[in-house]
């Protein structure tokens, strides 16, 4: 799981500001270490590392507004991984709202590649479309105060 993606910190979040990096390239990180602070319309939250590894590259600079959910924001290399294996992450185009046709595919579970890697633009778009579909359906709305 080398790519750190812009996380959705609430069910309704579509984009956020990368307000602060708490690590720099070359730092080693462990699970639970705070990597960055993300600002949404509602709150500032922390993004934690899930892996042990080395921060290879920060892909989005501090202070960037409107970073879409699931955009790769950094590369962390775990033991045995090389940066070359992950080139694709840097070439992901600016995320656009996925077309409706895509959204219908999103839940068929027919993707052979594990979407969690989000290693290609296609997979990333699929994940984004999944969350936007959910938002459109309003399935998650109104949850906040009751949990």
């Amino acid at each position, binding site marked *: *799981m080398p790519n750190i*993606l812009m*996380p*959705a*910190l*609430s*069910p309704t979040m579509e984009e956020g500001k990368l307000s602060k990096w708490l690590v720099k390239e070359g730092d080693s990180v462990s*699970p*639970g270490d705070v990597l960055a602070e993300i600002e949404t319309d*509602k*709150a*500032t*939250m*922390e*993004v*934690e590392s*899930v892996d042990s590894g080395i921060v290879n590259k920060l892909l989005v600079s501090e202070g960037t507004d409107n970073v879409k*959910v*699931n955009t790769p924001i950094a590369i962390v290399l775990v033991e045995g991984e090389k940066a070359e294996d992950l080139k694709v992450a840097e070439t992901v185009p600016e995320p656009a709202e996925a077309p409706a046709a895509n959204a219908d595919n999103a*839940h*068929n*579970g027919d*993707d*052979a590649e*594990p*979407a*969690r890697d*989000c290693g290609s633009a296609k997979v990333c778009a699929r*994940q*984004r479309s*999944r*969350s936007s579909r*959910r938002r459109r359906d309003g*399935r*998650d709305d109104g*949850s*906040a105060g009751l*949990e």
Partner: protein
Amino acid sequence: MARKAVATNAKTQSNTPQFTKEQELAAYQEMLLIRRFEEKAGQMYGMGLIGGFCHLYIGQEAVVTGVTMASKKGEDAQITGYRDHGHMLVMGLEPRGVMAELTGRAGGLSGGKGGSMHMFSLEHKFYGGNGIVGAQVSLGTGLAFANKYRGDDTVSITYFGDGAANQGQVYESFNMAKLWNLPVVYVIENNKYAMGTSVERSSATTDFSQRGQSFDIPGEQVDGMDVRLVHDAAERAIAHARAGKGPYILEMLTYRYRGHSMSDPAKYRTKDEVTKYRQERDPIEQVKARIIEEKHATEEELKEIETKIRAIVTEAADFATNDPEPDASELWTDITIGA
């Protein structure tokens, strides 16, 4: 073992009970599985793969691990609130089934229709997964009633939070539990906060181990970050309940590292407080340090355990990502039981 069942402050507990090599390694693996699973769940939530609620157990791992190690796995019933992933993993429910339930897939433990808070397993004697704060206390007491009625010599282990401890039905349950000497152990997971409200702000008395006093239910306060102390106290409490002496309260002093749920920035506590727990009290690091010091395993061997656990979690995450959502026709199933 013959310690009196009174409130012992965690700090004054001397003669810390020791674990054997096997127990240390078992506790380490169980807790690490919960930690890695929860971190992955947090990440998958961030990717939009998990809808609805998701409450992580990170920081509290020693509680359910120590208690379950002291119980008869598969025989004693357990029930908890919505912070329930760790309980299921330790009780032996399939990690992939739990994860796929979080993502709402057909292969989830509730067929993808329950989500994070609603999973059950009769086979494992796990009764949920309950979203209503405090409801599990009445249900858990009822499970103990059933155990006693059947005379099957099992105990009901009922977990709830510090916030839940202020709910009315808890005290109705305490009364009946003692009145009929039901075999129930109440485990209060005091992680200092109920959502954003600290114990001090919400509770007239903050020693939850004494909340059974007026019903003559004994209680102990336990360092819930040390799995050995949790296990030791749980053995005592479970033996008490199993012997027919009635309910017992264990207040576990613990801490959750993450926010209440995924969208909680946790601004009601200081960063220092969180950092202190993480660095000085972490339940997993404590066990790991002892394992190395006692030479129960080498760093290399612990790494192998970590790799094995990561593989389990990755497999669960892959399954939960690729398994299909339930068929629409499932909307009409599992609603009522035929007469």
